[in-house]
C-alpha cells in the first residue's frame, strides 16, 4: 500500500486535539449558598406558574424554558437554555414524554447533578384517548409503565393539586423552609379548588347531552375525565408531530360529529388548524374555536396565570357547546 499522504497529518492532529479538548477542562458545580434564593427551572409556562405558586412567588426564583406559544412536544433548546438548566438547583418537568425534544438535554443536565422531577409522576393518569368513544381500537396493551399515558394532566385542576406535594418536597430539598412551603401549598390548593368549582359553574350551562369534545390532537382527555365530557375524536388522533390525519378517519369523524351533533371543534394555538377548518367545512354549521392547551397567555392578560388561563379555556368550551 502507498504511504498515507502527508496532508493527513495536520488533520489527524486536529482530530486528536478535539478529543483532548473533551478530556480537559474542569467544570465547577453549581454552588448554592443557603441564604440565596434557589433558582428553579420549569419546562413549560404552566408548570412555571404552578411552581412559583408552590413557592409563594418569592421563596424560589422560577424561570421557564419553553416560551409562551411554543409547542412543548417539539421545542428545540438553545445552548443558553442548557446553561439556564445547569444553573438551577431543581427542574420541574411535566414528564410522561411531554417534553420529547428536551429529553436528551434533561437527561444530560440530570447526570450533571441537577435534580429533575416530573410533576405528573405518581398521579392518577389515563392512557391517550381513553375518554373517547373509540378507545377500544387502541391502548389494549396498556400496561403499568405509563409510557403511553396522556401527558396533558394540567387540564384538570384536581390532578394539579395532587402534584403540589411532589413539587413542594422537591423545593424543600433545595433548602426552602418546609413550614413556609406548607402554607403556600395550602393556599394554592384552596385557590385550585375554587378554580375547580368555578369551572363546574361555568360548564353547568352545557347540557349533559352536549358534553362532547372534538379536538385537534389528543389534549383534553383530563378535562373530559374531570368534567364528564366525552372526547368524540380528534383531527390528528396521535400525539406525534410527524403524524398526519387520513381521509378515511376524517370522514369517520365527520359522520360521528353529525350523528352526535357536536357543537364545536376545538383547535389549539400551537398547531395549524387547517385540518380542523377542513373538517368544519365538510360538516358545515360548526364552529372552530381555538383553545390554548400547552402554554399560558402573554403577561398582562387574564390568562397569564394558570388559574386565569384554565378559566378562559373553560369559558371558550362552554360558549362553544351551548
Amino acid at each position, binding site marked *: 500500500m502507498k504511504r498515507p499522504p502527508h496532508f493527513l497529518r495536520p488533520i489527524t492532529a486536529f482530530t486528536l486535539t478535539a478529543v483532548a479538548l473533551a478530556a480537559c477542562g474542569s467544570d465547577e458545580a453549581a454552588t448554592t449558598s443557603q441564604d440565596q434564593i434557589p433558582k428553579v427551572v420549569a419546562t413549560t409556562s404552566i408548570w412555571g406558574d404552578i411552581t412559583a405558586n408552590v413557592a409563594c412567588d418569592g421563596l424560589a426564583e422560577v424561570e421557564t424554558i419553553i416560551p409562551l406559544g411554543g409547542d412543548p412536544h417539539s421545542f428545540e433548546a438553545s445552548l443558553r437554555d442548557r446553561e439556564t438548566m445547569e444553573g438551577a438547583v431543581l427542574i420541574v418537568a411535566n414528564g410522561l414524554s411531554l417534553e420529547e425534544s428536551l429529553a436528551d438535554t434533561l437527561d444530560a443536565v440530570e447526570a450533571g447533578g441537577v435534580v429533575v422531577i416530573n410533576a405528573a409522576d405518581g398521579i392518577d393518569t389515563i392512557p391517550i384517548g381513553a375518554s373517547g368513544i373509540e378507545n377500544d381500537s387502541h391502548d389494549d396493551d396498556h400496561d403499568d409503565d405509563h*409510557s403511553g399515558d396522556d401527558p396533558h394532566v394540567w387540564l384538570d385542576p384536581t390532578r394539579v393539586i395532587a402534584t403540589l406535594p411532589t413539587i413542594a418536597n422537591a423545593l424543600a430539598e433545595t433548602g426552602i423552609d418546609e413550614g413556609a412551603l406548607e402554607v403556600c401549598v395550602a393556599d394554592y390548593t384552596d385557590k385550585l379548588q375554587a378554580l375547580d368549582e368555578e369551572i363546574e359553574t361555568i360548564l353547568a350551562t352545557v347540557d349533559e347531552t352536549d358534553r362532547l369534545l372534538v379536538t385537534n390532537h389528543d389534549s383534553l382527555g383530563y378535562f373530559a375525565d374531570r368534567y364528564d365530557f366525552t372526547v368524540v375524536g380528534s383531527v390528528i388522533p396521535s400525539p406525534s408531530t410527524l403524524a398526519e390525519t387520513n381521509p378515511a378517519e376524517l370522514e369517520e369523524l365527520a359522520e360521528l360529529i353529525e350523528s352526535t351533533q357536536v357543537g364545536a371543534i376545538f383547535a389549539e394555538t400551537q398547531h395549524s388548524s387547517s385540518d380542523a377548518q377542513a373538517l368544519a367545512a365538510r360538516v358545515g354549521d360548526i364552529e372552530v374555536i381555538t383553545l390554548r392547551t400547552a402554554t399560558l397567555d402573554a403577561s398582562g392578560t387574564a390568562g397569564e396565570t394558570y388559574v386565569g388561563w384554565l378559566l378562559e379555556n373553560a369559558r371558550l368550551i362552554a360558549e362553544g357547546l351551548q
Partner: protein
Amino acid sequence: MGFLTDPWEWWVGPFNDNGFMRDALVAGLLTVVTTSLVGTWVVLRGISFLGDALAHGVLPGIAIAFIIGVDTSIGAFVAAAAMIGGITLIRRHSPLPDDTSIGVLFVGFLALAVVIMSTQRASYTGDLNRFLFGSITGLDSDDIKRQAIAAAIALIGVIVLYRALLVMTFDESLAKMLGLRPGLTQGALLALLSVSIVASFESVGNLLVFAFLIAPPAAASLVVKRVPMIMAVSIAFGSAATIVGILVSYHHRSAAGASMALCSVILFFIVLFATMAHKRVAVYRSALA
C-alpha cells in the same frame, strides 16, 4: 454587538465557564472532521443528492429499530444499505438517470418513516424530531465517543481509498484500466457517507448533518484546487461555522443544531461572494495592465 465590544466574553467566556459548551464544541468539531473528509468526495463526485437522500433514508430504519427496541444506529445502517441497494437496482435495470432513482427512493423512505410513526398512537417516544434535529444541548460521553470513532473511520477510510477515489473522480476509464474497481470504491465511499450520517444523528441530527457534508467542502473547493487542501480548508470553514453557530445559539437563544447548519451555509455564500469579487478585481486589473 458583544462579539466586537467584549470579544473575550463573547467568544471565549461561554466555553471557559461551561462544560456543556466544550462538549458541544468537541462534538461539533469531530462532526466537521468526519463530514469534511467524506463530504469533499461527495462534492467532487457530484453525489450531493444521494447524500441528502441517505440522510433522510435512514429514518425508517431508526423508526423500526426504535419500535422493536434495537440500537437505532443498526436500524439506520440497515436502512442506508437498503436505500443504496435500491438505487443500484434501479440503475442496473432501467435507463433512468441517477437523480430519478434517488428521488424515488428518497421520497419512498421518508414516507415510510412517517407511515411507520403514524401507527404508533399510544406513545410519544417514537417521535422522529430528535433524530432530524439532534440535540447538541444534551450530549453524553457516548455521543462524543461515537463522533470520535466516526472521525477515525472517516480518516482511515479516506487514506485507504485516496488513490482510488482520486483516479475514479477525475478519470473513471483510467480507474478501470488500473484495476481500481470503481464499483467497489463507490460502495466504500457510500459506506463512509452512511457512517458520517449515522454518527451525527445524536448531535447535529440527520437533517442538519447534510449542511456540514456539503457546504464547507463546496466552499473550500471554490478557493483551493488540490483534494487534500480542499479537505483541510473545509475543516477550517466547518470549524468556524460550528464555533459561531454554537455561540449564536448560546447568546441569542436559537435552536443549537439549526444555528450551526445555518452558519455553515452562510459561510458558503460569503466565500462564494468573496471569490466573485476577487475575480472581478483580477479582470479589472488585467484590463488596466
